[in-house]
């Protein structure tokens, strides 16, 4: 039947098997007509032309950026949030490869894939936001090394390369290229060390960016230690994102995982919940310390104070306690909701620092244009679609039996 047809088609069998998942082109295209894809198509239909328009007509025509607000949604959300939510790559990678927590291996590859796609999308968002993106190579040629942004540019470049190399391990398993796969697999330990190193550097440097804005960033958020806060919240973001992503992946791809050895995602989620509880708890107190150190407690009674309390108590402390309770009583659903809240809290924090609490004394506030929103949503959508495409084909959520480790996991 199907095998006979693949034989007659010959060369295109690779395309059929690997790309079309064994279906004919017609079948495959028909299988794409799902409600989710429809929504995605609508988002992209608005967002992609908006992106084209940005390059055709300039930033002024497509965004609400102004002289008072040079950074908007694309920096605050696509760039900053994209980078921080991709922190799962280094947190889980480190847990498995360096701390020896082999139980988490089944969710290591999806975490690295999320990180890789996240960084690629963040870079695309950055290129959309830059006024003269063709000069981005100048960061390599002219060393503006006194700038945190220079360090970020280099670290993001290096880290994305590391993520790409880590991603090629399942990629070459998919293609069946054994020799190069073996070489890359052996270098995973070194790559993991590098990924933690580069991540520490640029996650914290994204916070250091705002050290140059003591008069513009609201005192409740401005602290000389902001770079430490950004790093710790990146770890929290990594844990939380992996909780959310693994829950969604194992639900969405459940049919593809039939017949595979059962991965106890619930058990791993409980473990992650424990870690999330402790990290979020510490991060909450760190934020308070920042406020005290900056003598800014008086501001807690203002409007911005309320915003700060919502972010810190509502989206850091509450998730921490929910993580703790959920882990203790093995309530996996509670942990997952706490993870989603923590993710929202990190997004909230990055938007507060870069946009909402930025230039806080300016009565005129920045609101993103619909095109900015459309482009940001489109980048997220493309990322999700890419993740799904890859997970449907490559050994990310499952082990390729041809490459399965004999002694490791």
């Amino acid at each position: 039947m199907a095998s006979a047809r693949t034989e007659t088609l010959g060369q295109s069998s690779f395309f059929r098997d690997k790309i079309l998942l064994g279906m004919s082109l017609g079948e495959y295209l028909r299988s794409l007509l799902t409600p989710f894809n429809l929504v995605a198509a609508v988002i992209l239909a608005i967002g992609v032309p908006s992106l084209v328009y940005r390059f055709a007509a300039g930033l002024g025509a497509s965004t609400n950026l102004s002289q008072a607000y040079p950074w908007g949604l694309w920096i605050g959300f696509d760039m900053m949030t994209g980078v921080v939510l991709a922190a799962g790559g280094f947190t889980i990678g480190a847990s498995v490869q360096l701390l020896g927590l082999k139980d988490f291996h089944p969710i290591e590859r999806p975490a690295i894939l999320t990180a890789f796609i996240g960084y690629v999308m963040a870079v695309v968002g950055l290129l959309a936001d830059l006024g003269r993106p063709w000069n981005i190579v100048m960061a390599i040629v002219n060393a503006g090394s006194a700038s945190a942004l220079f360090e970020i540019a280099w670290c993001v470049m290096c880290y994305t390369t590391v993520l790409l190399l880590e991603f090629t391990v399942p990629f070459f398993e998919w293609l069946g290229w054994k020799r190069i796969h073996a070489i890359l697999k052996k270098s995973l330990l070194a790559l993991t060390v590098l990924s933690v190193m580069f991540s520490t550097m640029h996650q914290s440097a994204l916070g250091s960016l705002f050290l140059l804005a003591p008069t513009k960033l609201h005192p409740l958020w401005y602290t000389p230690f902001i770079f430490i806060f950004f790093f710790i919240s990146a770890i929290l973001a990594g844990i939380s994102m992996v909780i959310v992503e693994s829950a969604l992946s194992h639900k969405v791809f459940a049919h593809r995982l039939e017949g595979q050895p059962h991965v106890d995602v619930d058990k791993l989620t409980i473990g992650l919940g424990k870690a999330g509880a402790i990290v979020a708890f510490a991060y909450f107190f760190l934020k308070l310390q920042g406020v005290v150190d900056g003598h800014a407690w008086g501001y807690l009674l203002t409007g911005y104070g309320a915003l700060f309390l919502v972010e810190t108590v509502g989206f850091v402390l509450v998730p921490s306690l929910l993580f703790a309770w959920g882990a203790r009583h093995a309530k996996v659903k509670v942990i997952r909701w706490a993870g989603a809240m923590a993710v929202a809290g990190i997004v909230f924090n990055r938007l507060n620092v870069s946009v909402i609490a930025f230039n806080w004394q300016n009565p005129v506030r920045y609101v993103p244009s619909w095109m900015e929103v459309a482009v940001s949503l489109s980048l997220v959508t493309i990322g999700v679609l890419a993740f799904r495409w890859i997970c449907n084909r490559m050994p990310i959520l499952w082990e390729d039996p041809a490459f399965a480790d004999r002694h490791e996991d």
Partner: protein
Amino acid sequence: MTTHDFLGLYDAKVMEYLLALVYLLLFVPMWRFVQGRPQAAEAGADARAQAPAGATAHPLLGWFHVPDGVALHPGHAWARLDADGLVTVGIDEFAQKLVDPEQVRLPATGDVVRQSRPAFAVGDQVVTVPMLSPVDGTVVAVNGAAAHGAGALRDPYGAGWLFKVKVPEAARALKQLLDPAAARAFLESAAEGLSHQLQPALGRVLQDGGVPIHGIAQAVAGEAWAALARKHFLTDRSEP
């Protein structure tokens, strides 16, 4: 820095150190809360150190504790992969307290058991309730002590083991059952259903670690205890 800023430092520093102190004090209970009761962890570690692995669960922990290495079947039978490659099967503490069996009908050596099919039965002199096997395989050993007396069954994870099975791909089979963390959640919700029907006095007796004669099922449902037990052991539609 102005003098005002400088003097403000002292207040701020006091607050900072106090905050750190509060955090450290809260950290200890937070850590312990997240990790679960430390007695449970220690009991599990001790259990592994003893040769016949399996510890008597502390009565105050209720029936929710499942020792490390033990995988639970939703019919309240457990399975444990031993170092010799055989799988030991027994009933969990919940089942033991529910029925407080006076006799156990076990399969014979050489019998074939099937996962989630009735393989053995527990009960009193008159009525027994069937229970499901947690694994597939061939019975290679039977615990004589358990078959004849309720005494051994008071240690359901240790001396109260019922029979040993030779299971093909044992590790994979056990992965399909509930591990201690998931088992705990399962047992908690199973117990919740019962707790609604408990009389206050009975509740206190249980908290002290005591077990009413003839098990809780009898205390709760009287003559209909067997039906209640079958419901929990998932054998309410099976033949006796």
